[in-house]
């Protein structure tokens, strides 16, 4: 028995008089692409247009279930200034409360989209070299930050290029791989995808780095010519990774204020949740 139930000091509150949260759909899914059997990319167009947002922020995405809104926050992968539709990565959590329902949605279906929220955003005017570290669907807010900050045609010196490290269990889960590889080939970023299950048959042919991203960071940063006094890191993914990668970056020399992270949560109810807050890899 928990503490609240054990000490009923006062009578239960009377019935609500305040307006209940609405679940009325206000946005249209305009595109859906399955990245892998468990990761999908959704583009969602709000009826009233895309609201102003900052790179790295999240929006509640939800549907109505039994008359009540069921929603979870999802970080947008879209760059700030996007006017057509917002892009999100959805990871299927088979026994999750919401994602199996969202997973069943297709282009043409409607959802409830909340307002932009969150403080995991880059500081305006920060000129330091950015290092983005993600696992799984945690790449979404980091892509938003990267593409919001990346000049249209800049060919930066190798020691100034943003570094993107993306860890996944299997290469097929590397959302935005083509886009990031193209930016790397163009000399605009340094992109390092890594697979953590090299022994899996689905990893056959993988020639890139293997293992957990936190263990790879020091080598990647040395190879990229990064220096701790001119670098800021943004980390997003499951809590174990964000903690471990943060510790690795601090050990490499980054000051505390230069290590920014957002962990995707798991609920206290005993099950994995599924959004920025879901286990990302």
């Amino acid at each position, binding site marked *: 028995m928990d503490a609240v139930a054990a000490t009923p000091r006062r009578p239960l509150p009377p019935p609500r008089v305040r307006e209940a949260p609405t679940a009325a759909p206000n946005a249209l899914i305009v595109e859906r692409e399955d990245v892998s059997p468990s990761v999908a990319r959704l583009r969602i167009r709000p009826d009233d247009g895309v609201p102003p947002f900052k790179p790295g922020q999240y929006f509640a995405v939800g549907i109505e279930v039994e008359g009540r*809104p069921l*929603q979870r926050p999802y970080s947008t992968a879209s760059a700030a200034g996007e006017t057509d539709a917002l892009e999100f990565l959805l990871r299927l959590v088979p026994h999750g409360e919401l994602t199996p329902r969202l997973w069943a949605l297709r282009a043409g279906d409607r959802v409830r989209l909340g307002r932009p*929220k969150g403080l995991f955003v880059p500081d305006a005017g920060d000129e330091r070299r950015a290092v983005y570290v993600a696992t799984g669907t945690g790449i979404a807010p980091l892509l938003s930050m990267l593409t919001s900050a990346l000049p249209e045609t800049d060919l930066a010196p190798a020691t100034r290029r943003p570094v993107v490290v993306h860890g996944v269990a299997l290469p097929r889960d590397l959302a935005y791989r083509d886009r990031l590889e193209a930016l790397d080939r163009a000399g605009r970023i340094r992109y390092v995808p890594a697979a953590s299950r090299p022994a899996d048959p689905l990893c056959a042919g993988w020639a890139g780095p293997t293992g957990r991203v936190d263990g790879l960071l020091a080598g990647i940063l040395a190879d990229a010519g990064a220096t701790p006094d001119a670098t800021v890191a943004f980390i997003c993914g499951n809590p174990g990774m964000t903690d471990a990668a943060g510790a690795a970056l601090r050990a490499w020399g980054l000051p505390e204020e230069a290590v920014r992270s957002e962990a995707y949560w798991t609920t206290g109810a005993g099950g994995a949740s599924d959004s920025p807050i879901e286990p990302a890899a």
Partner: protein
Amino acid sequence: MAYVINASCVDHSDQACVQVCPVDCIWGDLAVDRKLYVDPDACIECGSCESACPNGAIMPAKKLRGAAVDFAWIDATWFSDPDAARQVVDELVPAA
């Protein structure tokens, strides 16, 4: 089990929690209220507010102990009877 805003919020109401709550479930009338309140019917238990609060005032209801347990009642009650909720806040944390 929803999150609850406890006595550490009283007379601070920083609102960092409001900036991060993805479902807009944290309310308060800053002209009248001495703290903010989490709507337990709307809270999705993401914990964003707990991480954002500079006063360490937010925690899951199941972690409340002692007199702080009443803050679960206070938060839930504010959404239907705000005056009753405010009265109990004043009882637990008398105004200076």
